[in-house]
């Protein structure tokens, strides 16, 4: 992520979507495919939607929940799937396991649901991420106060969401960078950890990041 511990490399990204050609017309099929599809599909259907056409506050937060509601018309399953917070899992395999558990549970308790034909099939899609080094660098965490409001949505996605898949501790790039300054910036790290990336849009995440950085450094400087 960063060329040295003391400089933070600002990156940007773009996602390209790739169809796997795998689709499910019924719940039983979804379950079957879910056991076998590339794990990248889970990333796409839970996280990449942040960079796809959507609304500020969509009713459903992952594609599986949206499909269960919109196309399978099973509100119970949709609500259960909607509650999954992907960043709470150590990795995508664990997330897959949880998804399968929820689907199996629903299959067990329902009659004909596993074979009920959905209005439209679920298409498994994966993504390729193109990461661009912007060439911009922050040499101290304080510099980020002015840099963050100018970051593109792609940069926010890369550093705050995608980072959780890359960093050994499964955290965002900012907190990962602060480790090089330990024990400094611990309070800032705690405040950043409290930002829930799942329910917020990228624009909202940027605004919250800015707020946290600004108030942290203002309080450090003390009243003027």
């Amino acid at each position: 992520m960063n060329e040295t511990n003391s400089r933070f490399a600002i990156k940007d990204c773009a996602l390209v979507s790739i169809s796997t050609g795998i689709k499910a017309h019924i719940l039983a099929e979804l379950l079957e495919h879910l056991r076998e599809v590339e794990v990248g599909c889970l990333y796409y259907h839970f996280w990449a939607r942040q960079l796809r056409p959507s609304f500020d506050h969509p009713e459903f937060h992952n594609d599986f929940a949206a499909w269960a509601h919109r196309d399978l018309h099973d509100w119970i399953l949709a609500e259960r799937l909607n509650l999954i917070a992907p960043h709470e899992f150590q990795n995508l395999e664990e997330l897959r396991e949880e998804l399968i558990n929820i689907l199996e549970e629903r299959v067990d308790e329902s009659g004909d649901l596993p074979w009920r034909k959905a209005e439209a099939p679920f298409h498994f899609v994966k993504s390729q991420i193109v990461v661009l080094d912007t060439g911009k660098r922050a040499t101290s965490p304080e510099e980020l106060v002015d840099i963050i409001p100018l970051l593109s949505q792609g940069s926010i996605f890369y550093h705050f969401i995608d980072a959780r898949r890359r960093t050994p501790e499964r955290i965002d790039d900012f907190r990962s960078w602060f480790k090089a300054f330990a024990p400094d910036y611990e309070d800032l790290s705690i405040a950043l950890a409290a930002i829930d990336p799942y329910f917020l849009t990228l624009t909202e995440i940027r605004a919250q990041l800015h707020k946290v950085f600004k108030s942290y450094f203002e309080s450090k400087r003390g009243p003027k």
Partner: protein
Amino acid sequence: MSQELLERYQQIVGPDVIDHLKQLAYHLKDAKVVHINSTRYGGGVAEILHSMVPLMQALGLDVQWETISGEEAFFHVTKNMHNALQGHPVEFTEASINTYEENNRKEYERLKPLLEEADFVFIHDPQPAFLITLCPERKGKWVWRCHIDLSRPYRPVWRYLRNIVVHYNASIFSMPDFTQPLPHPQYIIPPSIDPLTEKNMELPEEEIKGVFSRFGLDPNKPLVLQISRFDRFKDPMGVIRAGLMAMKFTPLQLVYAGGGAADDPEGELIYHEVLAAAKGHPDIHVLMLPPDAHRTVNALQRAADVVLQKSLREGFGLTVTEALWKAKPVIGGNTGGIRLQVVNHHTGFLVHTPEGAALRIRYLLFYADKRLEMGRKAHQFVKENFLITRHLRDYLSLMLALISGNGERVEVEARS
């Protein structure tokens, strides 16, 4: 010129978006790119290329757009192929294959040096697809861009074409629903509209208001509009039924404006059916517009209060995108790409029946504030997702991904 063009887009989408494009394009600077389709004018593919090619050039890529020509027999075969790929059974014989391949061979002789040298070749739709098999010395990446809904193809034609398409490095489809299993990556890139073209640019207020007198409409009555070909899948009779049902409760005028149907005998038939259904209803207007009436369509969309796209089957539905861009909520059929664009209570409403459409017409005409708010959201939604700049970003990303291998992650170094 290049900078000026980028600045014009920048005024609409903002500097971030253009900067992002510049960053991506930097790594593709001077790459030789060739687009090939079958026509320079008419149709969605040509419209997109008219916008995409100058933008790619403005970003420093060495782009050429070539079209393949042919005799009537060739285009008869390719039109049949087109229909077949959309699911209609057609006659597809050895003679059809010979006509198709021979024409491609003839065109290849002219295009050979360009195609062999290109770093990227984008072949649009089936007409020029066969060129790849004629170019064994190709050094670049070849991508088949399919603008057609391939979800339910007529198998004999698809089996033939598939044997050609497998030679490509990748293909592009507008939606996952449109794909077929292929042994290479199938990228999903939705189409887009260009905010600078006559169809989508801002118009003077007097030109917008001018449509009322021009088409005998009442400027004091709400205007509900559907712009569509005269095609059963666009459900024109359902649109008229919806309009009539809504009129019982609220004053409005309905305009169904469609394009010419010179090569479509069924279109002519449907046009007359629609005229007959509208007969005797002074508030229903059926307009037959020439294919180049882009500015008129633009003015009608801007003059409308509510736009319908009550299709029973739809590809991506760029007329929906156009209406949303003009800040109009859209009442759309729950099908194809309309589902991607129309989100209940945000940009419009998805409906299944004329009754559903009638209710939503009444709702949107009754709640003016809601209508305007949804319109604002609709405009923003298109701005962020369905403009040519996003389309180009996807193309550039795909090109970078293709030259960097098929890994999940492509890292591009900083600009020096």
